[in-house]
């Protein structure tokens, strides 16, 4: 330990561009991930604005159908792989070592590499928009044979996805190695903060799922260029097999994007309820159960492909079973609030809205799990509403809540609370205006991924678009608030920051020193 301490003081604080390019410091790499994620959030958001503008009323006004399809495809790829996943990795980088009392991540150079792959991957992906024929337009799910009709963009997209997968797997290896090996003395598994637990389980999901995606897209690549027929019926293949392989990745992927969010909310709620998390052990079991179930439910994305009855029944039962552990988590959060001493600072507002709105996404998820009705819901705006409730008001809300929660720790400055609340209220109202009417659109018969629609869907679409524009614009407030906090405006933050905050990260100064826990803390 003494050696590590010496090492820390020797190097001091690197500066300039090389600080970021060659960084092996978990805090700097965490910051890079978060800034990258924020950038991609706005890039993907721009695509969403194009979509909502085009759908404001029937008829094509701004873009043609091909461009529209590129926008839906790129919006999803950028938001999933560029915004949400890197944001969680950024939070993991910053917080896991601080929470478990480690001086850094276990594999700092791998950490640098995991991050620096991403800018290249997304440069490749986004550059396809400027190629002849444009970017990928076959949906982020890349179903063949349609996706095989992609032009010049095709190999670039596949290669970009390979890079993102490599980055994610290396990030996951780092998290697992760190949690297994770098815990401070006394930081046993049953004391791990819930954010660390959820991320540990997420990391295993990543390692299991991402190579499957890599396999699926590689088969697409060889089908297109090397004469294989994995997914071509004329050559003895089966286009539906792609969907099985893709969703075997895709469903764990859904939980990869929500389990760390559960972890963040499980940190925030006890802090502002001033009461320990209710049901710590059952929370861990619930996350584990969800993780295991996530590997046997993929067929619910494909109820309509013409599966045999036994398949339909299996996937229906396993899918609705997920409601049980998910319910346990929600009940535990409510029980944590129960008879607490609640205050409603910005992070808590985001966490509470997460619980309510994520639950609404869970309800529609339960409905979608019922195969006989899914035959009506499938591929409609009902599905779009569902997954935006779990991904935007779920994952993204938790991330934004987590940023407000930890930003004072990272920067040593409080963000502007009034601005934070304003951003929250604008977001929470507009996001419901944006996505709630989409339930109605889907039930009334509007399919997803259409550039133009029948006139009876005009009103709900207009409302949804107005909500979308307000939601999009509101995020500029967030950007402003984060930038001004980083630049040192705002009141000085105390070490504990929040009155009810407990854990190793709150014992460090705000901001923490560049090298923290160079001597391992003692956890009692």
């Amino acid at each position: 330990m003494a050696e590590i301490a010496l090492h820390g003081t020797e190097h001091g604080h690197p500066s300039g561009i090389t600080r970021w390019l060659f960084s092996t410091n978990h805090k700097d790499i965490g910051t890079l991930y978060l800034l990258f994620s924020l950038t991609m959030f706005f890039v993907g958001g721009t695509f969403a604005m194009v979509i909502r503008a085009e759908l404001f009323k029937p008829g094509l006004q701004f873009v043609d159908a091909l461009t529209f399809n590129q926008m839906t495809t790129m919006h999803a790829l950028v938001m999933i792989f560029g915004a949400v996943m890197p944001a969680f990795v950024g939070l993991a980088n910053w917080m896991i070592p601080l929470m478990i009392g480690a001086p850094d991540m276990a594999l700092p150079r791998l950490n640098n590499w995991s991050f620096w792959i991403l800018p290249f991957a997304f440069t490749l992906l986004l550059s396809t928009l400027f190629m002849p024929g444009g970017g990928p337009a076959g949906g982020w799910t890349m179903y063949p044979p349609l996706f095989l009709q992609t032009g010049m963009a095709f190999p670039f997209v596949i290669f970009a996805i390979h890079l993102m997968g490599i980055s994610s797997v290396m990030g996951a290896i780092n998290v697992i190695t760190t949690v297994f090996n770098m815990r401070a003395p006394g930081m046993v598994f049953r004391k791990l903060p819930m954010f660390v637990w959820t991320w540990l389980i997420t990391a295993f999901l990543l390692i299991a799922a991402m190579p499957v995606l890599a396999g699926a897209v590689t088969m697409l690549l060889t089908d297109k260029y090397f004469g294989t027929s994995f997914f071509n019926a004329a050559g003895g293949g089966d286009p539906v097999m792609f969907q099985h392989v893709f969703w075997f990745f895709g469903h764990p992927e859904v939980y990869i994007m929500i389990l760390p969010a559960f972890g963040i909310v499980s940190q925030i709620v006890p802090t502002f309820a001033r009461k320990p998390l209710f049901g710590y052990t059952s929370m861990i079991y619930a996350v584990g159960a969800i993780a295991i179930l996530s590997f046997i439910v993929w067929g619910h994305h494909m109820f309509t492909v013409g599966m045999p009855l036994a398949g339909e029944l299996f996937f229906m039962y396993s899918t609705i079973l997920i409601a049980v552990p998910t319910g346990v988590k929600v009940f535990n959060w409510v029980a944590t609030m129960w008879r607490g001493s609640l205050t409603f600072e910005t992070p808590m507002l985001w966490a509470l809205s997460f619980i309510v709105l994520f639950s609404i996404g869970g309800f529609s998820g339960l409905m979608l799990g019922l195969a006989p009705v899914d035959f009506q819901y499938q591929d409609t705006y009902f599905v779009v509403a569902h997954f935006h409730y779990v991904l935007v008001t779920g994952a993204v809300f938790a991330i934004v809540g987590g940023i407000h929660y930890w930003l004072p720790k990272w920067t040593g400055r409080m963000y502007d609370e009034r601005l934070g609340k304003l951003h929250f209220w604008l977001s929470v109202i507009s996001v419901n205006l944006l996505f709630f009417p989409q339930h109605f659109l889907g039930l009334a018969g509007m399919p997803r991924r259409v550039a133009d629609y029948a006139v009876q869907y005009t009103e709900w679409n207009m409302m949804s678009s107005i909500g979308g524009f307000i939601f999009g614009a509101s995020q500029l407030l967030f950007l402003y608030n984060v930038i001004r906090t980083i630049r040192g405006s705002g009141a000085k933050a105390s070490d504990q920051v929040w009155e009810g905050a407990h854990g190793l990260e709150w014992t460090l100064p705000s901001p923490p020193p560049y090298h923290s826990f160079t001597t391992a803390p003692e956890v009692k």
Partner: protein
Amino acid sequence: MTGKSSRGFCLFSVAAASVAGSAPAVADYAFNLPSGVTPISHEAYRLHMLAFWICVGIAVVVFGAMLWAIVHHRKSRGAVPAQFHENTRLEIVWTVIPFLVLVVLAVPATRALMAMDDTKDADLTIKVTGQQWRWRYDYLNEGVGFFSNVDPKSVDASKRGSGIDPASVDNYLREVDQPLVLPVGKKIRFLFTATDVIHAWWVPALGYQVDANPGFISESWARIEQPGTYRGQCSELCGVGHAYMPIVLVAMNEPEFDAWLAQQKALQAKAATAAERMWTKDELYAKGQEVYGRICAACHQPNGQGIPGVFPALNGSPIATGPIAGHLNRVMNGKPGTAMQAFATQLSDVEIAGVITYERNTWGNKTGDVVQPAQVKQARK
């Protein structure tokens, strides 16, 4: 938060009311699943409403508890935090109760799935074939089959800068040139497949959608209870024309249906003889223009310029101005690995002859060539 979010909901309702008020012309303001016109669709609707009300019930309990805590257990009211953090009995209860609720949902869902799966003893079988971007319906064992294309009026109004208000087009994007006609009260079995990419055939009034996978067949059935016109559309992303693949289904009483079927048979016999005679260039050009607008223009564009990098231009292209045999081959057999399909099975001899004649004599292509239906027939051999 829950309290505040209900405030959000009020705003939301006000906004809803104001948007609705500003557009009184549109009376159709649907926001729920239709109950439909088949036993299956009624079953799906009942299950949907059951699941919905169960969710509402759970929401009231959970969000109610949250709201109570938010109002009563807040620090500003002097609440002192309790320190309990587990209660095994409570945790078992809220694991078991949701499980029982799921059983309540799973039982009717299982019953419905089993009913849907039973396609035996059908009175009539229809093969539904999806392709970019139209449907084909074949009445198996009846020798009747036809394509069902989106109404051109919708396509024209949809274009950017068309100047046509979509609301002025009847059944905008939900109208076809030839609807699927079915008898009421009969058990109809559908077989779904596709020729190019995956499509999905969705008519909400029947209660389901089924994917149409190229090279494979999936099936479903329906017994329509009342005559009427039912509309839907393709629900699986299938390319640039995805929004332009409507489905129109006309259900009629059996005598009318029989008369319709007989009429179709006569029409198809007449079309077969049309290919035997010589056609004039003007006739073929006019026929080709119609086919081009319906089939080819979505990719190659009405002006024949295509979309650079995606769909090649036909205006001045080596194929459309080169040897006729090459042009015939490309139209009839397509180009594997691209969106260019083999149209030999999709278009009649007259239609192929027409469209090739048209493409060779329009825009800047002035070859003067005429391709007769007989040549197409020859090329098929």
